[in-house]
C-alpha cells in the first residue's frame, strides 16, 4: 500500500468515507439484532475500501448504481446518513419516504441512481446511464457495483457487450467477496478472475486488491479517464471480503450449518481495510492520532444522532401510498 501518487487530502477523504461506512454499518447490525429494523439487511463491513476508493475517483456528476448490499455505496457517494437511517427504519423522513428500505436507497441529487435488490438488476441500467452521457456529449461516467454472484446472470453478459459495442462511459465494478449467499464463487464459476470475462467483450478487465483503497482509487481513476476519453467501458474486479454473514441474523436459519473456511476467513479478516488504512495514516503521520480519534468520535456521534432521529421520525402517512405514482 502506498499513496505517493495520491494527494493527502484524497487520502483523508477516502479514510473518512471508509470510517463513515464502518460506523454506520456497525450501528445497523446492532439495531437489526435488537429487532429494531424491518426486513433484512446486508452489511458492507470488510468491503468499504472498494466503494470509498471508487467514489473518491468520481465527480458529483458521475453516477453509481448499487445492489442489495448498498449502504456503503450510498455513503461513499456522499449520501446523508440521517436520511439513510430513517429509510432503514421505514420512516417518512427516509430517502425514499419509507417506500424503499435497505435494498432500495437512492439519492438522485448526488448521482446515486438506486440500490437494486435483484441480483444483476443494476448492470443494464448503468449501461443506460452511460448511454445518456454519450448521447448528450456529457463528460459523465456511469459506475455499476455488483457482486461475484451477479456475474453469472445473463444481465452481466448482455450489459458488458452492449456497453462495449457502443463504447459507452461505463465502469463495471465487481465486488468479488468470494460468496453469493452461501455458495463459494469457485463453485459457481470455473475461473478464478471474473476480470477474465472482459476479454470476451473486448474491453479491459483488471483485478485489484479490494482491501487497498489506494489501488482501487488508482484503477478507477484510470478507467474514468478512459471512459471520458470515449474509449469505452472497463471491468474492475475488486477482490474483497465480506466480514459478516450474507444477511444479518443468518445464524438463525443456518441452524448450525457452516459454509465458510475458517482459516480463509481469519486470513481475510486480518486484511481489514479500515485497519490497514488506519495504520497507514498513523505510521505515515498523515494525521496525528488525536485527530484520528476526534474524526472517529465525530462520525460515531453523527451515526448515533441519525439513529435517534430515525427512531423519533413518523411512519409514512397512509396517503403516501397514492403519491409518487404516474405524473
Amino acid at each position, binding site marked *: 500500500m502506498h499513496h505517493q501518487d495520491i494527494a493527502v487530502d484524497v487520502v483523508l477523504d477516502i479514510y473518512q468515507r471508509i470510517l463513515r461506512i464502518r460506523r454506520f454499518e456497525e450501528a445497523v447490525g446492532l439495531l437489526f439484532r435488537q429487532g429494531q429494523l*424491518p*426486513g*433484512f439487511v446486508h452489511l458492507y463491513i470488510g468491503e468499504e475500501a472498494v466503494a470509498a476508493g471508487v467514489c473518491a475517483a468520481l465527480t458529483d456528476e458521475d453516477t453509481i448504481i448499487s445492489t442489495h448490499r448498498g449502504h456503503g455505496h450510498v455513503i461513499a457517494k456522499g449520501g446523508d446518513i440521517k436520511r439513510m437511517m430513517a*429509510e432503514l427504519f*421505514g*420512516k417518512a423522513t427516509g430517502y*425514499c419516504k*419509507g*417506500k*424503499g*428500505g*435497505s*435494498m*432500495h436507497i437512492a439519492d438522485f441529487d448526488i448521482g446515486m441512481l438506486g440500490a*437494486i*435488490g*435483484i*441480483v*444483476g*438488476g443494476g448492470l443494464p441500467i448503468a449501461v443506460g446511464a452511460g448511454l445518456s452521457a454519450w448521447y448528450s456529449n456529457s463528460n459523465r461516467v456511469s459506475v455499476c457495483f455488483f457482486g461475484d*454472484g*451477479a456475474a*453469472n*446472470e*445473463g444481465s452481466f453478459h448482455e450489459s458488458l457487450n452492449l456497453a462495449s459495442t457502443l463504447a459507452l462511459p461505463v465502469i463495471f465494478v465487481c465486488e468479488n467477496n468470494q460468496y*453469493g*449467499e*452461501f*455458495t463459494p464463487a469457485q*463453485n*459457481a*464459476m470455473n475461473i478464478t478472475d471474473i476480470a477474465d470475462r472482459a476479454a470476451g467483450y473486448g474491453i479491459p478487465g483488471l483485478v485489484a486488491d479490494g482491501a487497498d483503497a489506494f489501488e482501487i482509487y488508482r484503477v478507477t481513476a484510470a478507467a474514468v479517464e478512459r471512459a471520458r476519453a470515449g474509449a469505452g467501458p472497463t471491468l474492475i474486479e475488486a477482490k474483497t471480503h465480506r466480514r459478516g454473514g450474507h444477511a444479518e441474523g443468518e445464524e438463525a*436459519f*443456518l*441452524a448450525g*450449518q457452516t*459454509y465458510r473456511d475458517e482459516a480463509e476467513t481469519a486470513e481475510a479478516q486480518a486484511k481489514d481495510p479500515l485497519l490497514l488504512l488506519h495504520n497507514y495514516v498513523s505510521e505515515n503521520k498523515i494525521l496525528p492520532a488525536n485527530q484520528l480519534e476526534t474524526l472517529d468520535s465525530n462520525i460515531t456521534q453523527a451515526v448515533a444522532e441519525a439513529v435517534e432521529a430515525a427512531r423519533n421520525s413518523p*411512519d*409514512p402517512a*397512509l396517503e*403516501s*401510498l*397514492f403519491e409518487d*405514482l404516474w405524473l
Partner: protein
Amino acid sequence: MARKTYVAAIQEALAEEMRRDPRVFLMGEDVRIGVFPSTRGLHAEFGGKRVIDTPISELAVAGAGIGAAVNGLRPIVDLMFGTFLYLAFDQIANQAGAMRFMYGGQTNVPLVLMAQNGAGSSAGHHHSQAVHQFFMNMPQIKVIMPSTPTDGKGLLKSAIRDDNPVLFLHSLSLGGKRSDVPENEYLIPIGEADIKRAGSDVTICTVGPTVYTALGAAKTLSREGIEAEVIDLRSLSPWDKGAVLDSVAKTGRFVAVDESFPSCSAASEWAATVAEAVFSQLKAPVQRVTNKDVPMPFSPALEKAVLPGEADVIAAVHKTMAYS
C-alpha cells in the same frame, strides 16, 4: 397424525418423492443449505447429483429444468423468491407451457418450479410481490398455492408426479404454520378446492395466506349474523370452478380475496367466471378484494395497508349484503 410446520411438510414431500423416484432431483441457488429451510437436509440424504446448488442464473436454471424434463427426468427447480421468476419468464412462458402443444404432442414437460410468493417480510418491492396471477395467464402452466402444511405436502407430491409443468408457490408467512399431517402417504389432487368454512350468506373465495384473512373476517361477520362460506382454492390453474359456482348458487353473493395487484388479478378471473356462469343467481354484484394498485412499499405500516386485510374483506361482504 402429527402436527407439523409448513416447512417440515414440504421437506417431507420432497424427500419422499426423491426416495420414490430416482428421476426426481432438485436444483437452485443454495438449496443445499436451504435459504428457505424446506430444502434443508436433502443434500445429506441424496448427495450432490440430486441436490444441485446452481450459480445465480435463473433463466439458465429454469431452462435446464425444461431440457432435463423433456429428456426423461423430473426436475424440481427452486427459484427462491417469486420475483426471481421474472428473470426466467421466457423459459416458462415461451417454452415450458407451450412445448407439448407447439410440437404437436411429441413431448411433455414434467417440471416443478417452486418459489415463495407474496409479501409479509417488509423487504421492499423486489422481494414482496405476489406473482401467481401472471402464471394463471399462461396456457398449460399449472399453478398451486396451498395454505396449510397438509395441503402443501399433498399438493407438492402431486405436482412432482404430474406430467406437466407445475408452479408451486409457498409463502414465508406460512412457514411456521402447523396442521395435522397424516403419517401415511397421501396425495391431494391439483385443481380441487377445500371448503374451509360452510356458510349460507356469502361465498368468500381465496387462496394462499389470505385464506387466514378470510377466515378471520368470517369469524367477525358471524358475530353480526352473517355466515360466510370460505373456499380455499388451493390450486389456481386449473381451479375448482365447480366448487365455487355451487357455493355461489347457494349463497348468491361472491367476494374474491386475492393478494395480487388488482388488474388481471386472480380475483378478476374468479369474479368474471362467477358473473358469467351464475349471473341469475347473484343477489349482489361480485366484489374483489386485492392489493392496492401500487408497487410494494417497504415500511411495515404501508405494506400492511397495501395487502388485503380483514377489514377490507368485511367491507366487501357488507357491500354485497346491502342487496337483498
